[in-house]
């Protein structure tokens, strides 16, 4: 097993592109090390991206926030401006694992692990986040919902890494929220989850909406019908019911030890409603 810790994304891409055998990217390692320990993966090459400067930065600009792929959940949770602009995304990322895990886990890693139950992903999708990808062929920007293609699978090509994730600048009168359902209070994996991002007009009517659901399909779902159900409303009871119904209609979950199809479907609607209300309040809407 070879371990490399290059200092540039280009170099990392080169190492990964030329690797023979199983090559993996190490960011926080909170998924990779567990999988290695359980014997699920035995890599030939590990490329640690944490020595790459760009992966360690949180940069604020007119275009929003660029969050390096090596930035831990704990650091994210301490970034005031980011928390103020995207509380849903930060809260979602801070739900991953335990305090110890928070010291290592990253948004980009959570995205590339490609679990449909990943906590940060529905929030990022709702926020319209973009992944900044570096590969042998150069750089490209991809909507985060296009990265995972199924459980454990991504659209990244051989040699490609995510260097950072961009969250757009916060629009006026906008707010986001993320909720997940777990039977416990922490240290668990979402049975079902929902991220909602709303922009209101000056009268408190929803102008734009993005609704994303986790753990109800092979990938996180961006539910456009759910957004349509609330655009043009003040989240009155009918709108919320329509939102929940649209979410339920979009669910294609599995039955497993964590939850049944019926339970996940029903609770997806409940969480979307609750997250929408929080997002509405954060956007300055008054009920």
């Amino acid at each position, binding site marked *: 097993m070879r371990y490399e810790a290059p200092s540039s994304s280009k170099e990392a891409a080169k190492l990964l592109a030329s690797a023979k055998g199983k090559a993996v990217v190490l960011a926080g390692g909170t998924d990779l090390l567990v999988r290695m320990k359980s014997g699920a993966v035995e890599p030939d090459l590990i490329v640690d991206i944490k020595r790459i400067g760009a992966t360690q930065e949180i940069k604020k600009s007119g275009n929003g926030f660029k969050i390096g792929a090596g930035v831990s959940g704990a650091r994210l949770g301490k970034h005031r401006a980011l928390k103020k602009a995207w509380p849903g995304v930060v809260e979602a990322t801070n739900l991953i694992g335990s305090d110890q895990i928070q010291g290592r886990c990253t948004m980009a890693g959570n995205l590339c692990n490609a679990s449909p139950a990943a906590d940060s992903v529905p929030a990022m999708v709702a926020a319209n986040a973009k992944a900044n990808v570096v590969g042998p062929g150069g750089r490209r920007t991809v909507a985060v919902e296009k990265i995972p293609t199924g459980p454990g699978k991504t659209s990244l090509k051989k040699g490609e890494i995510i260097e950072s994730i961009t969250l757009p600048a916060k629009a006026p009168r906008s707010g986001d929220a993320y909720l997940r359902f777990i*039977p*416990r209070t*922490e240290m668990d994996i979402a049975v079902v989850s929902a991220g909602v991002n709303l922009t209101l007009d000056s009268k408190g009517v929803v102008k734009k909406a993005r609704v994303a659901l986790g753990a109800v399909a092979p990938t996180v779902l961006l539910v456009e019908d759910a957004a349509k159900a609330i655009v043009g409303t003040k989240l009155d009871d009918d709108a919320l019911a329509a939102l929940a119904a649209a979410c339920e209609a979009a669910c294609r979950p599995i039955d497993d030890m964590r939850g049944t199809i019926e339970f996940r479907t029903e*609770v997806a609607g409940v969480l979307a409603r609750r997250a929408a209300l929080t997002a509405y309040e954060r956007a300055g809407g008054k009920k």
Partner: protein
Amino acid sequence: MAEATEFKAIGTRPVRPDGVDKVTGRAQFGADLNLPNMLYGKVLRSPHAHARIRRIDLDAARAMPGVHAVVSGADFPGAQHGEIGGEGGGDVADVAKNVMARDKVLYHGHPLAAVAATSQAIAEAALAAIEVEYEVLTPVLDLEAAMAPDAVLVNENCFTKNLPEPAEKPSNIASVMTLARGNVDEGFELADVIVEGEYRIPMAHQGYIEPHACTATVNESGQATVWTCTQGHFALRTQTANILDMSVADLKFIASEIGGGFGGKTVVYLEPVAVMLSTQARRPVKMVMSREEVFRASGPAAGSCAKIRVGAKKDGTITAATAWLAYEAGAFEGAPMGPGAMCVFAPYDLENFRVEGFDVLVNKPKVAAYRAPGAPQSMHAMESALDDLARELNMDPIDLRLKNAVAEGSQAAYGPKFPAIGFRECLEAAKAHPNYQKPVPEGAGRGVAAGFWFNAGMESSAEVHINEDGTVQIIEGSPDIGGSRASMALMAAETLGVPYEKIRVLVGDTEASGFNNVTGGSRTTFATGMAVIQACEDIIAQCKDRAAKTWGVDADQVEWEDGQAIPAPGVNAELKPLTLAEIMKTAARTGGPILGRAALNARGPGAGFSVNFGDLKVDRETGKVDVLSFTAIQDAGKAIHPAYVEGQMQGGAVQGLGWALNEEYIFDGNGVLENPGFLDYRIPVASDMPMIDTQIIEVPNPSHPFGVRGVGETPIVAPLAVAANAVRDAIGRRVHDLPLSPPNVLAAIEEG
């Protein structure tokens, strides 16, 4: 007697002697021992829940470089039949087959071969090289299907025991039992109200943090030393001797510190295998279970089905009750049907009752004890039924229990007459408790339930040595799980009149200590404590004798007070008291070293009763249940170390609530456990629980010098029904089956 005495040491809360090393990581647990030339042992486990082993070929594994021993069932002798001892039910001959399968594998994860190699990686590769040919059989996974007359048989040689007539054909029902009094038909006729219900509880695991681990080394004379994390190294030695057909004298067992057991570390899994591998390899062998192995193949608590019927008059007097209790034994007989059946009605004074119990084989791991084995399952049903009854009668649930509660002199449903017990005192304390007086918070429900456990006595030995400076060394053989070193030191301090800080306690190995039964049955503070007290009394008698010699008076002219020999009133008043240190200074001249000892089979453990209540909130849209508050009230007889008694009550409450809310073994249709890890086997995390409020009641046990009753097991019993009754209160509908997991509770809300 206890009430009359002012205690100096007992009832204080000093830091436990093993505490600092445990919190700083210095303490040595089961997996911490390493020896020169040590090999790593690993177990090959069945991929099928039920299969006949057609052939095992170990040759390829044996031939691998780095592999020093390979064993399978054929290498083990046939074990003698006998009681497992300690807390576990069943036959040692079955434990032998559980440790290493012979002709059949009976659950997914059942061991059928083992290897010892120079590295873990080589050991794993060797396991993969073992060829096994199976004839896969249909697994028996459902309790009631297993009891059906035409069921597939787990064991073709199992004939139901205790039937009125000997069984003619084999069955999955290993044994049955009946307890009865009066006439239930007449009793039900007298009833104004009758409630009934059927309750199912899935298998659950004790969830101890430390996986099973041991290291064995066999010397050139064939004598083995085994280091292991266990609740009872003597019991494990006996079992290992039987399984390997060895003399007990050739086995030395050393108990490491233990990271939890709760009943699950009272039987062998790895130890005989490690000894066998070490014998073959002629090198030390260490074996450590992974968490997955612990879940799949140690001894969870039995799953159960309970059918309860209770009739009462309008004033709440119970006129009759019946219980039908079936327990999953797993692959071998020995479910805790007996204690479950004996506990179900124990808190109540009933004229007419009937209890039927069934010990049922299924293709799941062989169950082991889990805190008050059998009682949580049966009493969950009874305490839920009483809650229904209280509603029907429009009575306060505590009043209903007070109306029927046993007291001193009541004939227990399981036989004996109760001596002084504290059930009524617990009920009255609950009713008066400020938490019970508070209104139930919005959106929540309140549940009340009682708990009971017999507690155990059994065999213990202790020695007390007085060091040359007057400090005290206790040697006993009960592994310290819940702070027993501290309790022993406190009882010795009280008896001898010596400060706690001057006392040391050793949990001796099987060669250093006299025989002690397992730390289980809530017996250690009671029974081993009694041995320590008697050994201290032995010391006092000898010290008085030495003082008499020093002073030139008769021994009966010497008294013992505050850790010193003093002249009896009116006798040689000018003599100065002699402390332990002073007595030791001249000990060589007065008879040599001073050593006290006691060995006993402690009788009269004193039954333990509890009353718990809690407020639980239900999210009506998701079915999620949150525990808002929980109050545990329990009779401890006399709390030697109150903080550790409270710890037992709080820990038991959390384990009981975990079992009630989310813990369950989830098997797929092939009998494969789907959640063999703490991610999906959901024990509560700290943030799930409120502070558990406790109130210790002290009704002294007349059989113990200080009034001690065991306190370790009763705490887990009541919380299951507290949770079920609170959820019933919150949603207006009873969920009979556990766990009260969100999907189950949401389904119940929607049905209603």
